[in-house]
Structure formats: C-alpha cells, structure tokens
C-alpha cells in the first residue's frame, strides 16, 4: 500500500459522507492507491508552485503598490540564467511526474496473466448489463448490478449495440474508467480489494437519462454469496409468465413508455390501451400499416425501426429476449 | 516632431499620384501585391489542412480494410481518371501562362489562356459527371446504400474472382470505400467548380482591361489556387484509381 501523502486525513470534514478522504472515495481496487499517490504527488508540487507564485505576487502587490513617494525602478528586462532555471527545473519535475504516472498507468492496463474472469459489459441507453461468461462461470448469467468477489481479478469486455451511442463505465472507488463504443470491444481490468457496494456511473454523455444511468458494484467475500446474488437478481426461469411481464417492463421500458397515457418527451407511445388495439390495424410513420399481433410485438422488439408509430421518433434500441420473456411481454401488453 | 512632420509631408508631395488600384492602407502597389500573395499562400495552407483530414481518413480505413480497397479499384476506370489528369495538367499550364500574359500585358493571350483554363475545368467536370452517373446507376455508392447487382460488377473483377457477388462486397464494407471516394472527389469537384467561377470572373475583368504589368495580383492568386486544386488531384488519382 502506498504511503498516504497527507491530506487524506483532512477528512474529518462533514463532506466525507460515504467514507474515504476529503478528496476521494475509499480505495477499493488494486490500482486505486497508485492513482491517488500520483494525485497527491502532483497536488503537493502544485501547492508549492502556486504558493510561490501567489506569494510573490501578493508581496509585490503590497511592497510596490503605487503611493506617494514611491517610484518604479528600471530593472533588467531579462536574465538568461534565471529564465533557464525556471524552465528546466519544472521540466525535470514534470518528467518525474510523467514517469510515476506512466508506471501506475501500466499497472492499470495490464491484467495479471492468469485467473482473470471475463465479464461482458453491454451499455445501452440507459442501462447496464453484465454477463458473466466463460470459465469459471457455469452459466451465462446477466445482471443489472455488477457482482464481484473480493481479491479476484476481472476483465471487462465492453461494447454497446450498433444503433446505440457511446457510454463510459466509471467506478470512482476503483479509480477506473473506460468507454463503451459501438462497433468496438474495449477492455478494462480491475481487482476489488474491499467488499461492499460502490457506485458505477455512465460518464460519457448519452442522452436524456444519462444521469440515471447509474448502478452499483457489489463486491462480496465468497463465491457462494456471489452465486446466490447473481442467481436471484434476475432469472426468467424463476418467474411465471404472469409475474415476469411487469419485471421486464420495470427493467427495460419505463424510461420511454408509460402505462397511464402520459407522454415522455422523445419517448415512445404509452402502453395504455394496448390490449384494445390487439388484432386491429395500426398506421405507421412511413404510411404502412399492419395488424397488432405477436409477430408485430416481436418485430417491434428486435427491429424497432421497422414500424415507427406516427408522431414518435425512431429512437428505440433493439432487444433480444428469449421465448419465455417474449411470451411474458405479450401477455403483459395485452392486459394494458 | 515638427521637423519629422514636415519631412513626412514633403515626402508625401514628392510621391507620384496614387494609382487608382492602390488601396488606402497600402503605400505601394508592390506592398499590396505581396500582401495579397501572402494571404493567398496562407489560404492554400488551410486548404491543404482541410483535405488532410480526408487523406487521414483514407489512410486509416485503408489500413483497416486492405481487401476492400483492393476490390474497389476495379470499380474505377483508370483511363477516365488518366484523361482527367491530363486535362487538369493542361489547365495548370494555361493558368501559369495567363499570369505571364498578364505581366506582359498581352491582352489577347490573357483572354485565350483564361478561357482555356475555364474550358479544361469544364471538361474535367464533364468526365466526372459520366463517372459519377455510372456509379450511381449501378449502385456503387456510400455506406449501407451500397448495393451492386452481381451482373453489374466490373468485368475485370469477375474475371479475377469468378465467384464474387455484389452482396459479398457489400458485407465487406465496400460502402465505406465509396463514402471516402465520393467525399474526396466531391470536395475536389466543388473546388473545381469554384475555380471555374473564379476564371469566369477573371475573364470578365480582363475583358474590361483591369490588369496591367503593375496590377495582376488576382490572376496570380487564382492561378495559385488552381495549382493546388490540380495538385490535390495528382494525389487523388493514384490513391483511388491506381493502387490496387
């Protein structure tokens, strides 16, 4: 663990509500200490220079202020030695900072050689999905929170669907961040060192609910606890078709579709009265129309641009649900 | 100061009457001419940077999709591109010649060379029109709009790769090549059109006898612009048409 370069304990202040220091949330990953060390190294250098600059300015302001009886003196207009000194010394200091910073950065980008667990991250407007794939995971679980086990290294394989926009995953307590870019697979690794719940933010502006695209990282101590959490968070098999519909709706649809006829700005049509439209023709923006039935619901989920209802933007991203989930959605919609 | 002002005034009186072409804030026609020329060079500098973006995009996508660029060059006819290169080089010659004519006050020569430059530029655009319309016709266009029927594929391509289909090329991302192709040649084409406008303007001014041996900056500067348009094409031609 790196030495705390001070100020860390300046933290008795009421600002530190969620633990951690005045400046930072608690260090909870293997790379956090390095990042903070670099931060405080630069901070102290800055304080020295800043106090020097402002101190000299203030001193001159007082000493040489315009007043009766005081007159400016002509002094030399340059001094090569002095100027070289105040160019070269900061340059050397900066190179040192660069060295320290790069050393820690290399720690951040190079995962350990073995034992790294892969998690696929899919960010889309405005939700996170984490899929635990490959060994040692036995089944492809997908969750909304990120579940991790303490002291195990993880590699994130991150992307976002082609029709979606750029997002960025930021876990302040881990001091890590990486963009999710459509059409690319970016990687990010970390190893949590503390158990508990931490914030996970989207930090690349992604539209209306950018500021709601927040979830939690849950770090637990044991494999068993992890398994219990992942399995119970969301498992379509654990629900009846009846109960599953509202769950899917709450997880995926509420940011654009209401149930009470209210219209969300730049969102889609409300689901109110959907059941009454069942089996009837519906008109679309491009002049076509089709009957509202099961295939229509499936197409609307998977190819949302195909039938855009008149008066609404073509803004929906596509969803791939399994058969049971789809049945649940259909049942849910028919009841509206 | 009184002496220096007197000096200034005598100097002012000693000067010949100001030529009508000389703007208020310049002292001499030469100063005015060289200022215009420096500004033109700076403008050409910004033109180069403007095109640089596209050349960078070309380099990046070429690096990422070697195969796509390989197949793409079958779609472009090097004979038409070559013809256009010759046409543009000729126009650069006449453009340079027009500057010479303006300097020597050869009015007739100036009018002829200006007209020839304009006509060459026009010929370039005509050839471009045929190239573009063929591509639009067979569907060799940008992005996901790319969709060439296998029957419309260039014969040379089918000869070399008999099993190739239009759909395969589409999946390969041929649309990206044509996005770059149309952006680069389109932007260049816009510059050619602007050049034609400038040469028409010069022609009218020359007809009215605006230029003389002391005042020909406009002819010189437009010729500079025209050379850079020509030079950009010299790079576009091999990058798009010749490299397979």
């Amino acid at each position, binding site marked *: 663990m790196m030495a705390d370069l001070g100020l860390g304990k300046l933290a008795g202040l009421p*600002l530190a*509500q969620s633990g*951690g220091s005045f400046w930072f*949330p608690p260090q909870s990953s293997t790379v956090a200490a390095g*990042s903070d060390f670099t*931060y405080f190294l*630069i*901070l102290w250098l800055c304080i020295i*220079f*800043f106090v020097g*600059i*402002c101190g000299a*300015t203030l001193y001159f*302001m007082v000493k*040489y*202020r315009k007043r009766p009886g005081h007159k*400016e*003196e002509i*002094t030399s207009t*340059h001094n090569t030695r*002095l100027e070289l000194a*105040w160019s070269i010394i900061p340059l050397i200091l*900066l190179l040192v900072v660069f060295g320290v*910073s*790069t050393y*820690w*950065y290399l720690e951040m980008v190079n995962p350990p050689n073995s034992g790294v667990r892969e998690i696929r991250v899919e960010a889309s407007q405005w939700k996170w999905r984490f899929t635990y794939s490959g060994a040692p995971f036995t089944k492809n679980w997908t969750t909304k929170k990120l579940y991790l086990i303490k002291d195990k290294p993880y590699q994130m394989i991150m992307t976002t669907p*082609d029709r979606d*926009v750029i997002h*960025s995953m*930021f876990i*302040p307590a881990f*001091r890590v*961040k990486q*963009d999710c*870019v*459509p*059409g*690319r697979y970016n990687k990010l690794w970390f190893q949590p060192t503390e158990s508990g719940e931490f914030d996970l933010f989207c930090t690349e*502006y992604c539209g209306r609910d*950018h*500021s709601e695209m927040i979830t939690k990282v849950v770090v637990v101590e044991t494999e068993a606890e992890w398994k219990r959490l992942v399995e119970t968070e969301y498992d379509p098999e654990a629900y009846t078709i009846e109960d599953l519909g509202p769950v899917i709706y709450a997880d995926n649809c509420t940011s654009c579709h209401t149930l009470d006829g209210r219209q969300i700005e730049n969102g889609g049509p409300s689901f109110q009265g959907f059941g009454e439209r069942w089996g009837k023709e519906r008109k679309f923006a491009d002049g076509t129309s089709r009957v509202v039935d099961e295939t229509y619901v499936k197409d609307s989920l998977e190819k949302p641009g195909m039938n855009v209802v008149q008066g609404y933007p073509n*803004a929906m991203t596509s969803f791939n649900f399994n058969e049971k989930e789809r049945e649940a959605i259909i049942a849910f919609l028919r009841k509206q | 100061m009184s002496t*220096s002002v007197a000096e200034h005034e005598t100097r002012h009186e000693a000067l010949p009457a100001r030529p009508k072409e000389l703007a*208020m*804030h310049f002292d001499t026609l030469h100063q005015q001419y*060289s200022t215009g020329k420096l*500004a033109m060079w*700076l403008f050409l*500098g*910004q033109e180069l*940077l*403007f095109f640089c*973006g596209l050349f*960078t*995009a070309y380099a990046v996508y070429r690096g990422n999709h070697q195969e796509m660029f390989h197949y793409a060059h079958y779609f472009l006819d090097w004979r038409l591109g070559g013809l256009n290169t010759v046409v543009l080089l000729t126009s650069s010659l006449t453009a340079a010649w027009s500057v010479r004519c303006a300097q020597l006050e050869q009015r007739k020569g100036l009018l002829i060379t200006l007209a020839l430059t304009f006509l060459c530029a026009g010929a370039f655009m005509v050839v471009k029109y045929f190239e573009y319309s063929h591509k639009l016709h067979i569907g060799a266009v*940008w*992005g*996901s709009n790319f969709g060439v029927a296998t029957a419309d594929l260039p014969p040379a391509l089918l000869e070399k790769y008999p099993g190739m289909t239009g759909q395969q090329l589409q999946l390969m991302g041929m649309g990206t090549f044509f*996005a770059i192709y149309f952006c680069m040649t389109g932007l260049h084409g816009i510059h050619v059109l602007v050049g034609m406008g400038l040469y028409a303007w010069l022609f009218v001014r020359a007809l009215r006898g605006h230029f003389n041996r002391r005042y020909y900056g406009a002819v010189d500067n437009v010729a500079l612009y025209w050379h850079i348009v020509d030079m950009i094409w010299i790079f576009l031609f091999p990058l798009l048409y010749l490299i397979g």
Partner: protein
Amino acid sequence: MAGGIVEKPASGEVIHPKVHYLNASKGLKSWLVTLDHKRIAIMYLVAVSVALLLGGFWAVLLRTELLGPRDMILSNDWYNRAFTLHGAVMVFLFIIPGIPASLGNFILPMQLGAKDLALPRVNLMSWYLYVIGLVFFLAVLFLGGLDTGWTLYPPYSSGRDIQWNLILSYTAVFILGFSSILTGLNFIATMHKLRPKGMSMYHMPLFLWALYATSLIQVLATPVVGLTLGLSLVEHMFKIGIFLPQYGGDPVMYQHFFWFYSHPAVYIMVLPAMGVQSEMIATFSRKHVFGYKAIGWSSIAIAAIGFLVWGHHMFVSGQSPTAGIIFSLLTFFVAIPSAIKVFNWVATLYKGSIDFKSPMIYALSFIYLFGIGGLTGLFLASIATNVHLHDTYFIIAHFHMVMVGSVLTAFLGGVHYWWPKMTGRMYNETLGRIAAVMVFIGFNVTFMPQFVAGTRGMPRRYANYLDEFTIFHQISTIGAYILGAAVVLQAGYLLHSLFKGKKAPPNPWGAASLEWQATSPPDFHNFTEKPIVMGAYDFENWELVSEDAGYRLKREVVETGKSLSKVH
C-alpha cells in the same frame, strides 16, 4: 498642424477630436458596409457580448437546476439542451472569436502603426460569417434547441433521424470556422506586410505576438474541424458511414478529428488572453515586461506543441495505451511555456509601481486563476490520474478556470483597458473595481467546489445527481449568481459611460504601445500624425499631466522622434 497630440497646450488641457472614426460617417449603412477595422471591431464586440449574455443565461439556468439533486426547474431534456447551448455558444461564438476579433481587430493595426488590416473586405466578410453563425444558433434555439453536447459526438448526434436543428448547428460551426480562418490569415498578413519602418517583430507588443501565434492555429487547425463537421453533416443527411458504426464508420475517428482542432482551439482562446495580460501587467506596474522574447516565443511554442496533444481527450476511449502515454508526455510539455509566461509576469511586477486600476485587478486575478487552471491541467496530463478524473467535475472546473477564469477575465480586463481608446469615454472606476473583485470571487466560489466534487466521482453532464454531491453544487450555484451579477453590473456602468462618462484623454494609463499616441477615439485613419515608433514598454517616454488629462509624450521624445529608453 491639426489634431495630433503634439499640439496639446503645455497646461495639459486635452483637445478631444471633433471628428473621429465613430462619427466620420453616419447612418446604419455606413456601419454595415464599413471597411474600417475599428468599426468592424466594435460590431464584433457587440456581437460577442450578445453571445456572452446568451451563453451566460444558459449557465445560470443550468446552475439553478443543479441547486438540488432532483428536478428543480428543468426536465432532463431541457437540462441537456441548456448545457449544450451554453457550451456551443460560449465556445464557438464567444471565447474563440472574443478577444482576437473584437479587441485584436481594433488594436492590432494601431499597435503596428498601420492604417488598417491587410484585407479590409475579408475582415468585413468574416464578421458577416460570424453573424450568420450566430443567427443559425439562434434559429436552433427556436427549433427546439440541441441536446448533443457542444462536442457533437457521433453516434448520438449524426446518427439520429434528420433534424433541422442539427443540420443548422453543423453548418453554423462550419461557417464560424471560416470566419475564424479569415480573421487569422488577415492578422498574419497584416503583421508581416503592414509594419511601418522601425517596427521590427521584436518591437511588437506581446499582444501581437500572442495574436500571431493564435492566427497560426486558426489557419492551420480550424480547417480540420470544418472538414469534420462538414463530413458529419453529409453523414447525418446521407448516412455515408464515415463515423457511424452502423454503416461501417468509426466514432473514435471523429473524436481524433474533432480534438485535433478543438484542443489547439483552447490555445486560440487562451493565447490572446495571455497577450492582453502581458500588456496590462506591464502598463499598470510601469515596468518593461520581463523576458520579452521568452513570452513571445513561448506563445509560438504553445501553438506548436498544442497541435500534438489532442489524444489526451481520449485516454479512455479505447485508443491504444502506447498512444495514450505519448500524448501524456507531450501534454506535459505544454506546461513549460505556460509556466514561463506566469513567472515572467510575476517578475515584471518586481520594483514596479503597481496601480490597482480595474484592468490591473483583472490582470492580477488572471495570474491566480490561470495558476489554478494551468496547474490542475497537470492532473489531467498525467494518465494515471486522468483515468479517474476524465469526464468528471474536475475537468469542468479545470477548463472553466482556463477558458473562463483566464480568458473571460482577460477579455473583461482588455475591454476596460481599451474602453477609453475605443469609445473616447471613461467608465466609473469605483464600480469597475467592485465588478472586478466580484468576478474574481464569483469564479472561485463557482469552480473550487467542483474540483472536489470531481475527485469524489461526480460525473459531468448530469441533470440529476446523488445526494452526497448536493453541497458542492449549491456552493457552486451561489458563485455563478455572483458572477452573473458582476456581468450585469459591468454591462450597466459600461453602457452608462457611453452617454455620461467623462471624456477620455489619449493616454489615460501611461501605456507605451503606439495606439496610445492616437486620439481617443482615434481618427478614421487611426493616426492624424505618423506615430513615433518606439518600444512597446518604454514607459519613460511618457509623463503624467494630470489624472484627467492622462499622460503625454515627453517633449524630448517629440522633438527627436526617438525613444528615451536604454533598454534593448
């Protein structure tokens, strides 16, 4: 001899010109078709002030929304529009053209001793291009605003269905780019070709060196953003697949292209501010600026290195770690010439006679605010800390300290400094000082808490936030109100001075650069007599007549036509 400062009676009574550039011709048309750089500068000043007020309005609106963690006055959509328009208007319409096109346009030919800019028609054209850009942004406002963020990143921007407000925004930035390029090449041509005899490059005031460096960037970097937004426009309309992934493009390439311009653009903003700073510091401490060549060349160095650092905006976008490390190193290098300037300004104060006039208060707060803005840049150049701080409020605080703390401060300082010259009137000095102090306090209260919010993880561009960040946001909003009040106060007393202000003498501050040898306001031809070319910081050539009559050239200087200064 008529006019000229030389004719001032020895009593020190100032003759105010009856005919000057402001009334040489009359009527709206005489302004709209003017080729006079001074009138164009005034028209720019009016236009950029409108942009400043517009951008400031959005800032106050969005700070008010952030008073509480949940919806206060704006929905998410309107919050997003507010910060987009705040950013776009401030960056493209205020900060980039602000100092060069208004103050620079007015002062550059006068400091050279020239009659006008090299290309007066091009100058007028660039003003019209600017106004078209401004009108387009106003149109965007009435077409329902824009919510893409000022950076217009695809796919969020160009990937959507065709929208008029987006088309207008792309076109507006494209046009504004050309306005900027034309101003830049005009300045360079002027500085090379219109310097009178005796005015070497090393005689030029440092403001002109700064404008020269700025112009280089404007000419060489702006075309790239022009092309990028041009391509985005074409892509938005025809989906050609350059930047949009669903058609085969690469959104990260957009970021490279965009920042290749937009990082140097930061120096387009800050270099002229540093130039104004050099003038004000020297004048109000009555000292020859320390390290003239170092300050001049550091401007050029910043411009040059500025072209090589754009990648530090993409440390976490998926660019390769090697590229990231190289960009990090190059970014550190920019700190050196910036630091050199600050040290030189402080050294200039040494043994001076420091007069706390309003422009000087701005100049002194510039040292402090740019100190913070510049030093916090080190945290972002350092890649290990940048990963954590990227896209948080730390970034917001950092670049506002530089772009607003420094640039707006220098702009306001410059406006006060040259106000007597431009308008021929003195503003109310007491109110000027109060406003200057308010601006300083406002900045600090607004942005200091944001640094801590940022390190604690508050992401930028959030309409709603977690409760734990409330206190930072509330303090910040109070600061924004102080800042807003200061700007309103300034607008008030500056406008008032136009009608009721005392008439200004030719040289109220005792500054030594050539523009102060002209009358206030200057003649249509700038100088009624050929100015005496001398060093820009040879303050010993001027003597104080009285507080009201300002300074005049010493008789010895007038008679010999030579500077008394031994320095060189």
